[in-house]
């Protein structure tokens, strides 16, 4: 049937279908353009200041010159600390929820709690960190306080990813192990966890990406405007990439002067986060290829 021979009703339906497909395609294009536009804008503006020196030297002249090395280092410390705190805690919580807890009201309540935690604005985590780690536990504004705060922030991500990964391990593996007279704990340790590891790692690395990019949780708990020296212990304050951008763009009297440095810092931060995500993607595809069941 050609277009000419179609009835009126059919033409209308045909038109509607095309309209709908068009709308879907358009939103996809807009989304891609927006993302591409942002990245392109950052790249163009940021690339000018990027140099080996920018990445490896501290800021000078009231931060209008020099590099951002302490901020890069600080962000690495904070995210590494956060994952060290959150990964074991999150995986153990997920094991409890999927393998041990009787599915029922309590587990549902815990899950709702975890999901709510994921939805809490990050500044609230910052205030909690300030009240609890900095003031109450007297850790002060430090790497430790910041890492713990970020750790709690990414905990829901890690629990969620780990739960999904654990649930993805076929029940038949558990049965096979238990039927051999291997205890439940050893079954989880030797069979379930190793097979869930790719999923757990992917989720965790995405969590790291989030932790690296957050400003609000660290501004009261760890981040410093400027540190004259690099941190010596976990009780020292640090500079951090997101906070550095925030500071340069809003505080001080040299906002316009530091614009290139701001873009350069943003570029480094974006590259860092995307790089971490890329690692997650590579690990996942590698382990998927290896996994066969």
């Amino acid at each position: 049937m050609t277009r000419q021979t179609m009835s009126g009703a059919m033409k209308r339906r045909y038109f509607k279908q095309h309209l709908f497909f068009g709308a879907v395609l358009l939103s996809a294009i807009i989304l891609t353009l927006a993302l591409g536009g942002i990245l392109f804008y950052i790249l163009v503006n940021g690339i000018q200041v990027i140099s080996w020196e920018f990445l490896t030297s501290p800021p000078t002249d009231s931060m209008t010159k020099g590099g951002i090395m302490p901020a890069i280092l600080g962000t690495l410390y904070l995210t590494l600390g956060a994952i060290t705190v959150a990964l074991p805690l999150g995986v153990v919580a997920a094991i409890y929820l999927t393998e041990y807890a009787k599915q029922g009201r309590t587990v549902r309540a815990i899950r709702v709690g975890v999901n709510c935690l994921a939805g809490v604005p990050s500044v609230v985590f910052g205030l909690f960190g300030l009240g609890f780690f900095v003031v109450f536990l007297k850790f002060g504004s430090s790497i430790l306080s910041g890492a713990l705060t970020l750790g709690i922030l990414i905990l829901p991500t890690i629990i969620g990813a780990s739960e999904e990964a654990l649930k993805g391990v076929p029940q038949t593996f558990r049965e096979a192990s238990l039927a051999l007279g291997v205890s439940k704990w050893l079954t989880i340790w030797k069979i379930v966890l190793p097979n869930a590891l790719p999923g757990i790692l992917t989720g965790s690395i995405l969590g790291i990406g989030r932790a690296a990019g957050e400003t609000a949780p660290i501004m009261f708990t760890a981040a410093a405007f400027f540190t004259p020296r690099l941190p010596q212990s976990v009780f020292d304050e640090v500079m951090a990439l997101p906070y550095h951008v925030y500071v340069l763009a809003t505080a001080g009297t040299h906002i316009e002067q530091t614009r290139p440095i701001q873009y350069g810092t943003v570029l480094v931060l974006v590259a860092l986060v995307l790089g971490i995500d890329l690692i997650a993607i590579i690990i996942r595809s590698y382990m998927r290829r290896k996994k066969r069941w």
Partner: protein
Amino acid sequence: MENNHFDTEIIKTKNINFYYGAFKALTDITMNFEKRKVTALIGPSGCGKSTLLRLLNRMNDLIDGARVEGEVLFEGMNIYDPEVDPVEVRRRIGMVFQKPNPFPKSIFNNITYGPRLTGTANKSDLEALAEQSLKQAVLWDEVKDILGRSAMTLSGGQQQRLCIARALAMKPDILLMDEPTSALDPISTAKIEELIDELKKTYTIIIVTHNMQQAARISDKTGFFYIGKLIEYNATEKIFTNPDIKQTEDYITGRFG
């Protein structure tokens, strides 16, 4: 009297009722299983035969809301006694499942997984055990040169024999088999059936099967289940030639089920 029974009986159920939540899956099952014999459990889908099998090594413990009444006496000891560790029970009573379920590990590590985690650490002991178990499962000749290869690369029939070898490596007294050939082709099925015939010299085998010819071919005794009840339990030959109960005859002649 009790001692006399010991020679021939290895495990028996006494007035077992089993519930999945509110649903009663088994009603008043009392059944003796003889040592070094093959006992087949047959019946239509949902009749409770698999439930009974999984109850014999406490695999039903894993199901939320499952509840057992009555006793299962394994060499005179009630395995549902609160003092009894189900992990210990499962070491003595192995299980082979409907779908081959090797671990995504090497063939060697599949076989030695159980023994390694339950005490055997010595490498040469493990190697000897692997060889012995694979020979018992008639898989040795096919895999002796590829022990390091992933078990997932084996064919379905080989995987199932690997699972049998893996269960045998624990040196169990009883081997429970839950429709072990239903996912396999006829040639692999024939191999497993030959294997069962060989294994019964050493082990007590209880097998659930959907395939009545299979039950007739390989078993010494057969129990027929219907809607959670043990309808008839007799020598296999009798069940398939001259059953005592009409319902059994209707089932084996294909009138229902």
